[in-house]
C-alpha cells in the first residue's frame, strides 16, 4: 500500500474520501458532486497561494536579468516580500471614488480572477487527474479568456473616469485582436490529436511532442498568449507610464491586488496550457505507473515555459498599440491561417498515403516558415527603398542626385 499511495496520491485520497462520504449515507451522485466541489476549492486555493512564490521568483529573476538584486531584506533571500506586500494591500483602505457603479466596480476584479483560475479546470495535472474531462477543453480555454475581457471592460466602464474607459477599450481591442490567431493555432494540436479534450491531446503526444511536429504553431501560440496576458512586449495595457494605469486606475488596495494576482497567475497558466498542448503535459519516463512523476514533469515543463515568458519580459521593450495591431493583423493572422491549412493538408496526406506524419508536418512547417521569411524580407526591402527615395526626394538640390541602392 505504501508505494501505491506515494505513487498515486490523488487516486488514493479520492478513494478514501469517496468511501467516507458514502459511509455517511450520501448517494453516489451526491458524493461525487461534493468531491468535485472540494477538489475545485483545493485547486483554486493552491493556485492563489502559489502566486506568493511566483511573484517573488519573478521579481528576483527579473532583477538578476537587469543586473540588480531584487528583494532581499524580508526573510532569507527576500522570500517573504510578497507576504509583506499582501499585508500592506490588506491594510489599505479600498477607496471607492464618487459616482462609480458599485456592483460592477466590485464584480470586475472577481471576473478577471475567475477567468484565470477557471482555465485550470480542464488541464490534466497527472494521468487521470483532470478537473473535468470536457470534450471541448480547447474551446473552453478560449471561452474563459473571453470572460476575462468582459471583466476588464466592466472595470474601465464603472470607474467613472474617461481615461480608465479609454484604457479598457484599448485593452479589449488588443485582447480581441490577438484571440483570432490564438484560436486558429489552437486548432493545430486538435487536428494532430483528433480531439479537443486536453487529456486526449496529452495522450496522443506519445512518440513525439507536438512542439516538434508543429513548431510554428507553438511559436504563434506563445506570442499570442503573451499578448493575451498583457505581458511585455505587449504590456501597453497597464504599463506604469501609460494612461495613468489603464483600466485599473481607480482601483486601490485589495481590488487592485486581485488584478495584480490575476496577471501573474495568468502567466503561469499560459505556461501550463503551452506545456499541455505542445510539450506533452505530464508525459515522461514512468509517468503512467507513478502518476506523481507525471505531476512533477508537468510542473517542470510549466515552470520552463513560465521562465521563457519572464525572460522575454526582461529583454524586449514595449511596442506601441498601432505596431501591436499591425503585427497581429498583417503578420500573425495570415501566418496562423497558413499554418492551419498546411497542417491540415500535410497531416491528412500523410495519413492517407501512409507517410511519416512527423516528417511531413515538419516539412510543411519549414516551407511555411521559409515563405514567410522571404515575404517579410521583400516587404522590409520595399519599405527601406521607399523611405530612402522619400528622404532623398525631400532634399532641395540644384543638380539631379544619382541614387545608389
Amino acid at each position: 500500500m505504501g508505494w501505491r499511495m506515494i505513487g498515486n496520491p490523488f487516486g488514493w485520497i479520492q478513494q478514501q474520501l469517496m468511501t467516507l462520504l458514502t459511509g455517511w449515507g450520501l448517494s453516489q451522485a451526491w458524493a461525487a458532486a461534493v468531491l468535485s466541489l472540494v477538489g475545485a476549492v483545493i485547486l483554486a486555493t493552491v493556485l492563489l497561494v502559489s502566486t506568493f512564490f511566483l511573484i517573488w521568483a519573478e521579481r528576483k529573476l527579473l532583477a538578476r536579468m537587469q543586473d540588480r538584486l531584487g528583494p532581499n531584506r524580508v526573510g532569507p533571500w527576500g522570500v517573504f516580500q510578497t507576504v509583506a506586500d499582501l499585508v500592506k494591500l490588506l491594510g489599505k483602505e479600498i477607496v471607492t471614488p464618487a459616482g462609480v457603479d458599485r456592483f460592477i466596480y466590485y464584480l470586475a476584479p472577481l471576473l478577471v480572477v475567475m477567468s484565470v483560475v477557471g482555465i485550470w479546470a480542464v488541464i490534466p495535472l497527472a494521468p487521470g487527474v483532470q478537473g473535468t474531462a470536457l470534450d471541448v477543453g480547447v474551446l473552453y480555454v478560449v471561452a474563459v479568456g473571453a470572460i476575462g475581457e468582459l471583466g476588464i471592460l466592466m472595470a474601465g466602464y464603472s470607474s467613472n473616469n474617461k481615461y480608465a474607459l479609454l484604457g479598457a477599450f484599448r485593452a479589449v481591442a488588443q485582447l480581441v485582436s490577438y484571440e483570432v490567431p490564438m484560436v486558429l493555432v489552437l486548432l493545430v494540436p486538435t487536428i494532430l490529436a483528433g480531439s479537443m479534450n486536453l487529456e486526449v491531446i496529452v495522450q496522443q503526444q506519445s512518440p513525439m511532442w507536438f512542439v516538434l511536429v508543429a513548431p510554428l504553431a507553438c511559436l504563434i501560440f506563445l506570442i499570442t498568449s503573451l499578448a493575451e496576458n498583457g505581458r511585455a512586449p505587449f504590456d501597453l495595457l497597464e504599463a506604469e507610464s501609460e494612461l495613468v494605469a489603464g483600466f485599473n486606475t481607480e482601483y486601490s488596495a485589495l481590488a487592485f491586488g486581485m488584478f495584480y494576482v490575476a496577471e501573474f497567475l495568468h502567466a503561469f497558466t499560459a505556461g501550463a496550457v503551452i506545456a499541455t498542448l505542445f510539450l506533452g503535459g505530464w508525459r515522461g519516463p514512468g509517468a503512467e505507473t507513478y502518476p506523481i512523476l507525471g505531476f512533477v514533469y508537468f510542473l517542470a515543463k510549466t515552470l520552463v515555459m513560465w521562465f521563457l515568458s519572464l525572460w522575454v519580459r526582461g529583454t524586449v521593450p514595449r511596442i506601441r498599440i498601432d505596431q501591436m495591431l499591425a503585427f497581429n493583423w498583417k503578420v500573425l493572422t495570415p501566418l496562423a491561417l497558413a499554418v492551419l491549412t498546411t497542417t491540415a493538408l500535410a497531416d491528412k496526406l500523410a495519413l492517407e498515403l501512409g507517410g511519416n506524419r512527423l516528417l511531413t508536418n515538419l516539412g510543411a512547417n519549414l516551407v511555411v516558415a521559409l515563405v514567410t521569411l522571404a515575404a517579410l524580407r521583400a516587404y522590409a526591402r520595399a519599405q527601406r527603398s521607399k523611405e530612402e527615395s522619400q528622404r532623398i526626394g525631400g532634399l532641395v538640390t540644384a543638380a539631379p542626385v544619382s541614387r545608389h541602392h
Partner: protein
Amino acid sequence: MTLLQLIFLAAAALTLGAAVMVVTTSRLVHAALWLILALAGVAVLFALLDAPFLAIVQVVVYIGAIAILIIFAAMLTRRVMQDSGRQTTRTWWLGLLAALLLFGGLVVLVLQVPGFQAAGGAAPDPQANLIDLGRSLVDVNAFILPFELASVLLLAALIGAMFVARPESRKPPGGKSGTPGGEA
C-alpha cells in the same frame, strides 16, 4: 429532486430573471450586462442538454463577441452615464396583450407535441456528437451549402467593414517634403 433538476431550475430562474431585468432596467449598459447574464444562463442550459460544444460556442460567440460589441456600441454612441428615460410608452397595455397572447399560443402548441410529457431518452455520446456535427457541415448531402454561404457572408461583412473604416486616400506629395500620413 436530483442534482441535475436542481441545477436546471437554478439556471432557468437565472435566465428568466436576467431577461426581465434586461427590459426593465433604466440604464443602457446595465441592460447589456444583464443580457450577458441571460446568455450565460442559456449556455448552462445547453450544457445540461448534453451539448457542451454549443454551450462553449455560446459563451465564446455571444458573450465574448456579440455582447462586447453591444457594450462598445452603447458606450461609444450615447452619453451612457446619464441614460435613464421613461420605461413605458402610452400604449404599453397593447404590448402586454400581445405578449400574453403569444405566450398562450406557444404553450398550446408545445403541449400538442407528442412525447412532451414523457421522460427524456438516453443522451447521445457527446464525442460522437461533435464528430457528427463536424462531418455534417462538410457532407454534400447535409449542410455544406449553408456553411459555405455563411462563410461568404462573413467574408463580405469583413471586406465591407475594412472598406468603411479605411482612412482617406493619401494625396501625392506635390511640393511637400516628408512622408504624408501613416499607412492604412
